[in-house]
């Protein structure tokens, strides 16, 4: 079996198991390429019936405008149902102040809004686009990843999944995070997007953008949330985004790749990992992802 065929089949089986083992599963939708692929796979999994999952978007309030426009169009054209929950509100509820940093990232605070939504909507499974190739803590995670009543991940006592037999049985108040793209790499995702001709937000392709040049060479999209200093240098560059997250923690990369084919060619040449190239939040500490995941992060 061809590798894309294998990965597609595996993801469809996981999505079906989620639908048949849980009462109120949601598909976590960020507007990024991985969650857009998941929507496509969910359509294939249940065709000719409609997708049986509600989408849940945890809105940081720092999204790119292009992401939100794309989200609304996708929901409209595919006739999907979506719930949007706001990180701004979750912060207000907990009286958490905006981070004082130059780049006030709300990335880690998404967990609050997510945990609130899980409780409010009585969600028993959250389907996420996390991939094992993204980070070494993710490389350790199961496909059905159990969360206790506090929403905590305990990486040292995970349920074994021999022969990919997924055990989704839980007690009230517990939930499971589901990762259908566990075995996909960034390049697999792009090859699949090419094969299936899946539409993506324009942010993923080269465009001219006003950027803030950081001392280490990283380019941040100029946006209203960054606290500019007099010494900062703003430059216009042809860039694209490898990941789309909160505007305050996602860096752009210099690129001329304007099509899916050109992006794939670019990825085949690149020497830098996806998160290393684009995520400021993962540069902070080696266990950054593990710590955030333990506290309920995606």
């Amino acid at each position, binding site marked *: 079996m061809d590798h894309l065929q294998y990965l597609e089949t595996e993801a469809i089986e996981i999505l079906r198991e989620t639908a048949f083992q849980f009462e109120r599963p949601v598909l976590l939708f960020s507007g990024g390429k991985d969650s857009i692929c998941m929507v496509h796979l969910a359509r294939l999994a249940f065709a000719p019936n409609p997708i049986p999952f509600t989408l849940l978007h945890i809105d940081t309030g720092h999204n790119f405008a292009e992401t939100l426009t794309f989200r609304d169009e996708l929901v409209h054209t595919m006739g999907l149902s979506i719930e949007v929950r706001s990180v701004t509100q979750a912060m207000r509820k907990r009286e958490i102040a905006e981070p004082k940093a130059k780049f006030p990232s709300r990335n880690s605070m998404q967990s609050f809004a997510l945990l609130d939504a899980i409780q409010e909507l009585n969600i028993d499974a959250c389907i996420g686009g996390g991939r094992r190739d993204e980070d070494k803590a993710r490389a350790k995670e199961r496909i059905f990843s159990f969360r206790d009543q506090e929403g905590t991940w305990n990486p040292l006592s995970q349920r074994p999944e021999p*022969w990919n037999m997924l055990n989704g049985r839980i007690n009230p108040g517990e939930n499971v995070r589901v990762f259908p793209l566990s075995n996909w790499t960034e390049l697999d995702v792009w090859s699949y997007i090419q094969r299936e001709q899946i539409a993506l937000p324009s942010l993923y392709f080269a465009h001219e953008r006003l950027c803030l040049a950081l001392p280490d060479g990283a380019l941040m999209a100029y946006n209203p949330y960054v606290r500019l200093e007099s010494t900062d240098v703003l430059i216009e560059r042809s860039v694209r985004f490898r990941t789309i997250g909160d505007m305050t923690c996602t860096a752009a990369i210099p690129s001329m790749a304007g099509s899916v084919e050109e992006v794939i060619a670019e990825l085949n040449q690149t020497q830098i990992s996806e998160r290393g190239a684009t995520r400021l939040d993962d540069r902070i500490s080696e266990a950054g992802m593990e710590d955030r995941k333990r506290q309920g992060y995606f």
Partner: protein
Amino acid sequence: MRILKVFTCGNVDDGKSTLLGRLLLDSDSISVDILHQLTEQGGGVPNLALLTDGLRAERSMGITIDVAYKFFTTKQTKYILVDTPGHQEYTRNMYAGASECEVAVVLIDALKPIEAQTRKHLEIMQALSINHVIVAVNKMDAVGFEQAVFLERQSEVKAVLNLLENQRLHWIPISALAGDHVVKRTQVMPWYTGPSILECLESIPQDPVDPSTNSLIEIQGLVKGYAYGKVVQGTFSASTTWKNSIHTLEIKESYVNGVPCENAHPGDQIAFQIPEEPTLKRGQQWAAEAPLQFTECTVELCWMGEAMEPGTLEFILRRGTAERRARIALPKRINPNDIQHLDMSLSAPIDVLMERIQANQERIILIDKTTNATIAAGIIKTIVI
């Protein structure tokens, strides 16, 4: 590009992390930023163990506790590398990680005779009937690349290994540290003329021929007039008359991976319109020649939960998508990581093809009724009809 799932195992300190790192490093699969980080942490040379030990606890203890998944590709293959723990305490994680793989790479230390834990790994490889087993004798550099040492380790392994008919064994002397015979072949052991580990992996043929004679599908669930299922073995064709032990089923309007299609192969995800009188349920199996049903069986289990004292125990059993209550008469205490043969009886019958029992292909997990934890995994060895 095809997919090949490979797991690596070895006793603690046999050099497993070094081997994996070597495989990824020499096949140019580590990004510059990650390599930079590893080099900083290793004080000038990349600390390859940190590549797969992704958890804080693993790094602080310097051991692998749970399975890690890594990927790399060659021109023809996408490899899913399943790095499994060596410690006796975490054998269950090794069993689970190994269960889905076509190839095992077992690392053996050239410096010392094989130990109990390596025997355990070989026992699991047999229990899981892994098709290809590569035994890599590591640290050949530390024994002067002597063929005699290699042969000595080989005879020790052969003495405990009793491979099944479908299993193939490959022997490779390596030095993971120096990179000899991991990705590239080198000249340091002129007495060895075989392939490197990567060359050996590349030569393993894609998808072994499916020996099954009967076609089998399993039902995952039903939604609004459609059944969803998976092809377990053989070829799926919409024109087949499908049978279970009581009914027959004619299929209309079928989909394969979401696209209208009338033919499918093992693993494919199918959907089809449900006939007006629905006899379909999640967990059923339908075949071209009717499956049997059983409630009594013997199983070979790998115990993954806490120790249990002798007595009659009840669990939830999963076989594919079927769930039943299962009762086990435990004759003696069972400890975590034990592999044991046990008798089991089910609350209601399960569909099965005899040829799949004979080929060790009927796999199960056991789930605790209170905590819902997966506490055992295993293979059905015999059934009572």
